[in-house]
Structures are given as structure tokens and as C-alpha cells.
């Protein structure tokens, strides 16, 4: 079963129409955000500022993420990379103290426009969190959760199987789909969370340090998985681990203190010949 055969014809709620029917004409024109010229742009941030109460977490961040690639966000703790990730699917809305300014376009449509429902947005942007957080439900129900809440009319069994296969978990759990997802090991739980995130067929998959709570073997499984996902999805991953960013990402964005995006370019360029001295210091371990 090809990945395109499910989910793509899902009936979306009316609130989502504005977002769905926006023309896909987003490019790199406009106020010249940092960007890379290959492929269509999926996510484009333009002058994003975020405050938590009076504390500024992101300072005028602009970047464009191309389609079907892995984009890594690296930087020291508290530099705002997770905050930026959470701007893309408006998870920051859930925090009362957070305030976001600037434009962030998904396929050319500003997700902070008044007519965008954050619930509809999150149905197109999947997310995987730092700590594996499967629901205390069966493995099957975990993967089918997105389909159920989005009321998708699909062959659930097929979607669950396909998603678990894509998350490289199917062989380990195919005989016990009705066991609780929380009984799996940490690495299996995180792959279950990835399967859950891709089951409703989102356009973008956000990953917030998905391997930081896992052992090296589980980490390398997740990394292989992420590289494979980039064939069909646009993956944006926050990581503390620079080797991980170098191994799996196509583009890398380096955030340094104060919530500033210091450099954003092809991963090779960032790791071999960065323009910015502070980035070089950070990459080589002299700082951060």
C-alpha cells in the first residue's frame, strides 16, 4: 500500500477550508528571509517574535523550510529552538503567558491569521515530543487516535498497519496490537508516537528532541526512521545532539542565546564552513 492511498481524501472540518484551499504559491519573495532555493517552501517564518510574559524567547526569526527534507534546529538550552517548533503548530497557544508576533506561513497561508483554527492546523502538522507520550490505550488505538478524532473515513486497519510499518515498529507489535502502548520499551514508545503522528498523513512532522530520552540503539533506529520519513514528509527536528543533526538533516538552523537565529543553511555548509564565528565556536564545542 502506498502512503498516498490513505488520509489524503480525508474530509476536513469547515474551519479548515481556509487553510486547505490556500494556493501553494509561497516562495522566497518578500522580505528576504534566510532560505534555500531547492524545492517548494512548506513553512516560512517571517520576523517571528515570542515573549513569555516579559521575557523574549524568539527574536525576529525568519527562515524557510523546503518540502520533503529534514531540517534540524540546534543550539544551546534555552535558545528558543523548541519555542520556534511550537510556533509552527501553534502549541504555544496553550500557554497563557506566551505571545507571538510576526508571520508564519504554512504553504503560503499565515497560520496566525484570524481565520485559522489551531485545531485544524495541528491536523496538518504532526508532532513528536521529547518524552515518549503514548496514551494508556492499546497500540492500535494510539495509532488510530488521529483518524478517530478527525473523523476520517478510512480503512483503519490498513492505515494502522502502514503507519506502524513506516515507523519500523510493525514487526515487533503486529501480534499484540491490543496491548497497552505504555507497556512498550522507551524506544518502541517513541516509534509508536511517530506512527501516531504520521497516521493521519500530515504535511509536516515536528520533532522536539525525539531521541534525547533514549538509549544509543533506540536513538539510531529513530534516526534511520527520520531519514526515511523525509521521502514523504517535511520533517523539522529540534536536537541537542550536533552529530545527530549532521547525520540526518539536509538543512540546519543554529539558534544561539537570546532567541536569535544566527545561521541557517545546508547542513554540510553549517558543519564544514559556517559563515558566523559564533556558530563555528558552537559547532566545535568552544561555546555552549
Amino acid at each position, binding site marked *: 500500500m502506498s502512503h498516498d492511498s490513505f488520509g489524503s481524501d480525508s474530509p476536513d472540518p469547515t474551519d479548515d477550508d481556509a487553510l486547505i484551499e490556500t494556493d501553494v504559491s509561497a516562495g522566497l519573495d518578500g522580505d528576504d528571509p534566510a532560505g534555500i532555493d531547492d524545492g517548494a517552501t512548506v513553512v516560512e517564518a517571517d520576523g517571528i517574535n515570542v515573549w513569555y510574559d516579559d521575557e523574549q524567547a524568539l527574536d525576529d526569526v525568519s527562515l524557510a523550510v523546503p518540502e520533503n527534507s529534514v531540517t534540524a534546529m540546534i543550539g544551546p538550552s534555552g535558545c528558543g529552538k523548541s519555542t520556534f517548533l511550537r510556533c509552527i*503548530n501553534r*502549541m504555544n497557544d*496553550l500557554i*497563557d503567558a506566551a505571545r507571538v508576533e510576526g508571520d508564519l506561513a504554512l504553504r503560503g497561508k499565515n497560520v496566525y491569521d484570524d481565520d485559522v483554527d489551531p*485545531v*485544524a*492546523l*495541528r*491536523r*496538518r502538522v*504532526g*508532532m513528536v*515530543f521529547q*518524552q515518549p*507520550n*503514548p*496514551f*494508556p490505550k492499546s497500540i492500535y488505538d494510539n495509532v488510530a*487516535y*488521529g483518524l*478517530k*478524532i*478527525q473523523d476520517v473515513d478510512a480503512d483503519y486497519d490498513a492505515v494502522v498497519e502502514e503507519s506502524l510499518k513506516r515507523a519500523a515498529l510493525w514487526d515487533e507489535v503486529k501480534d499484540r496490537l*491490543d496491548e497497552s502502548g505504555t507497556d512498550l520499551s522507551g524506544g518502541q514508545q517513541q516509534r509508536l*508516537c511517530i506512527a*501516531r*503522528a504520521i497516521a*493521519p498523513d500530515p504535511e509536516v512532522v515536528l520533532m522536539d528532541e525525539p531521541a534525547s530520552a533514549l538509549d544509543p540503539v533506540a536513538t539510531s533506529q529513530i534516526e534511520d526512521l527520520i531519514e526515511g520519513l523525509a521521502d514523504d514528509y517535511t520533517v523539522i527536528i529540534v536536537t541537542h545532539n550536533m552529530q545527530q543533526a549532521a547525520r540526518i538533516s539536509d538543512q540546519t538552523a543554529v539558534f544561539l542565546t537570546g532567541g536569535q537565529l544566527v545561521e541557517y543553511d545546508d547542513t554540510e555548509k553549517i558543519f564544514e564552513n559556517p559563515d558566523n564565528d559564533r556558530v563555528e565556536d558552537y559547532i566545535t564545542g568552544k561555546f555552549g
Partner: protein
Amino acid sequence: MATDTDSEASVFGRVSRKKVIALRVVLLASSLVGIAALGALLAYVTYQAFDLQEVAPAWFLVYFLALVVPTAALSLWLRGRPDGLQVGAESAIALWGGTMAAAGAGIFFVAVQPVTWFATLVPVALVAGVTVALGRYTPISETVRLVVAAVLLGLALFGLPGVVPSASGLLGSLSTLPSDFVIVVATVVLPAAAAVGAYVALVREERRPGLVAGALTLVGVAAAGYGIGLTTGFSPGDAVLIPLFGLVPAAIHAWRTVQSEARSAAGLSLPVTIGAGSLVGAAAVDALGLTGPTPWLNWQFLTNLPNKSFPESAGVFPAIVGSLLLMIVVVVLAFPVGVGAAVYLEEYAPDNRFTRFVQVNISNLAGVPSVVYGLLGLAIFINTFGMESGSVAVGGMALGLLILPIVIISAQEAIRSVPASAREASYGMGATRWQTVRNVVLPQAMPGILTGTILALGRAIGETAPLLMIAAPDAYLGIPDGFLAPAAALPLQIYNLAFLPQSAFRTGVVPAGVVTMLAILLTMNGIAIILRNRYQNDS
């Protein structure tokens, strides 16, 4: 070097040790003083209720040897087996709780005639069926369906007064209705058997064993109930409840234990030992001709009507029925409202002045004296709305308001304990707030919510002041027949019995009533503790 460290350690130890020990003793004493006082009171009341002062020491010795010694020995032995003692305690609690549940269900069918129950249930089931079918086979939206269901339900239960008779009224007035036995089997045993079958099918992951287990439960319970009905004084309709609640949960527990490899099935012998010990003790006492106690708390006390003149034949049955009906009203009112308020405050309400105002005042309401709630019930429900004074509905509403803040606060705590990561996972999948609440938050918070609600119910069941204020009859002679009839309640009945002239009421009947009430309360608290333990094991 080592000697140095030792002497230093002892110097350090000497500085505070005496104070620490003194403080520990004081703290231990303050922890135990309440428990000790309550224990002494309980022992005294039990002593009086079972009239133990006349009993020969040999009687105690026989029961000690036949019942206490084997049970204690078995318990000691079970401690060495995996989960042995726990399995034993669980099976004993399942049997005891099941018996209490059977009694509760039987009492419910005393107050609400099976025919009335049937006439109410059938229209409700029909409306529910129609609503579900509309949802499955037509594209009608959920809101419309709910409105239609509400209207249909209103028509079915109440009709249009004076114009259209209600469906339940029509059903109830039919000349040929199924017998009580058929009604109870169809409306209680059949769903329970279906649930047993579904559970077995789920555990065995096959349909066949589930079907077999469900059919066996249905036929077995119906046959056993009919048999009990024929051989004892119970009507067959009531008798069915005994095997259903008394044996089926214990049988399921035993089946699961035998299936499980990690738990020792030897624990199941604990309730058997207790039962056999009681029988052996009774036989031995009989053979030796020892005089046993003539307890005030006996079957007759539980099933008789109150009697102001003859303490020997006094009973508390109407008060037990009244208390049960009150609890049903309290649960139906306080649970949905309380959980709804908790969900709003935790999941929806913005953090602003209004929310904080509401929150602070809910905490204040929890401390309002119960007599004030009684006054509220009197002023609003009786004087303003003209409801009948002393009726179950008014009493239940006053008690429901009384425990509402407790239910809200405990439900809030349970909801708050659901990890934020679970909510994030749900929101991150594009779930709406309500979907997150329904699919993620409530299922995880439910054991905690139930625990808090049961404990709050325990508070409500012992309240007397609100019932006095709404003029609940304290020695009502008849059994209440429904929710609009006046009814006594256990604490009120005990209060009244204490002021009767004959001293036997104070030394025998009141203690028996107190022990009855405490038995109900402790059973409820036991269920709450089991729920809480299970909750902690899961998380």
C-alpha cells in the same frame, strides 16, 4: 582514622538524639490518639450491638479455635506466596462487596417496583437505540440528535401533562405485564451476563468462550435465583440478585487468578477457610450447648419496620431504603455537576479574576456547616418550589449541594494529576479541547474522581442536620415508594431511637443501628481504597 570518624559520629548523634526521640513519640501519639479513641468507641458499640456481655468465655474460645486460628495461620502461610494474601483479601472483599451490592439492588427493587422500573427503562432504551441508529445510518448532526433524544425522552417519561399520556405510564397500566422475575432477569441479569461474556471474550481473545460464559452466567444465575426463591422467603425476582452480585464477581476474580501465572491461586482458600470456620464453630457451639449472644443486630433488625414500644422487634428497614434512595439522588445530581465544574475549571477556564473568585468560593462552600444546606433546601425546594417536605428528592438535593464542593475539589485534583504530556500529545494530534477531555483526561482521571466521589458520598450518608431542617420523617412507619415520597434515613433514625424512653433502645438498638451504618460506610471506603490502589498501580 576509623576511630576518629566513629567518635565524631557519636558526638553528632548525641546532640539531637533525645529531642528526636521525644518528638517522634509525641508525633506518634498524636497520630494514634484519634484512631485509638475511634477504636474504643467502635469496640464498645459492637459489644453492645451484638450483646456480648452474656456470652460464656467457652463460646469465644470455640470460635477462636475454629475461625480465628485457622484464618490467621492461613494468612501467615499465604504471605510467603506471590500475591497470596492480596488474592485472599480481594476474593473475600469481592464476596462481601457483592453481597452488599445484592442487598442494595434488592432494596432498590423494594422502593421502586420492578414494573415501574420496567416501564421507565423500556422507553429510555428505545430512545437511546433510536438516537444511536440515527447517528449510524443517517448524516444527522450530533446536536440535532441530542435535541431529538431529549424531546423523545421527555415525552416518553412524562408525556404532555393532560394531553398525551407518557409511554411509561401507558406501559405501567397494561393489564398483562411480565412477572418481576422475568423483568429482573431481562433488565439486570441479561446485561450483566453480556458484560461477563464481553469481558471473557476480551481476555481470551476469542468469541466462543465469551458466548459460553455469557450464556452460562445468564442461565446459571436465573436458575439459581429461581431455586433460592422457591426454597427461601425471597421472591424469585429478588433472589436472582443474590447469585448475580454475590457470586459472579467473586467467580470472575477466581477465574482470573487461576489463569494468571504470576499470582498464587492458594489465596482463594482464605474466604473458604473463613466460611468453613464459621460453620464448624456454629456446629461445635451447638454440640457443646454453649449459649451464644442474642445480637440486637440481626436479620429481623435489618428487615423490620421501626417500633417505638418494643425494642426487641424494632427495625430500621425503611431508614435503610431511605438512605439508599437518598444516595441515588445525591450521585445523580452531584457527580455530573461536580465533574463538569471540575473539567471547566481545570481545562477550559482562563486564569482570570472570575475563575479565581469561583475557585476560592468553592473551597469556602466545602466548609459551610451542613445545617445551612438544610436551611437552603427548606427555603428553596420546599418553600419556593413547593416540593413535599421531607421527601427523598428534597433531601437528596440538599445533600447533593452539600457534597458538591467536595466532589468538585477531588475531581479537580484527579484531573490535575493527568500529566501535561498526555494533553500535549492529544492537542498535537489536532484534537479539540472536548476530544482531549473525553479521550485522554477523563479516562485517566476517572479512578481518582470515583474515589473522591465515594468518600464524599460517605459524608452525605452520615449527615443528619440537613434532613432535620427539611423535616424528613424521623420515624416514618412505611417504606418509601419512590423518589417523591417522604423517607427516613439511617442517621436520623438512630438519632430518634436514642430519645425513646426504654433503656434497651439506647443500649441495644442504637448501637445496632450505628454498626449497620458504619458497615455500609466502611464498605464504601474499602471500595474507594481499592480503586485508589489500582489507580496508583497503573500510573
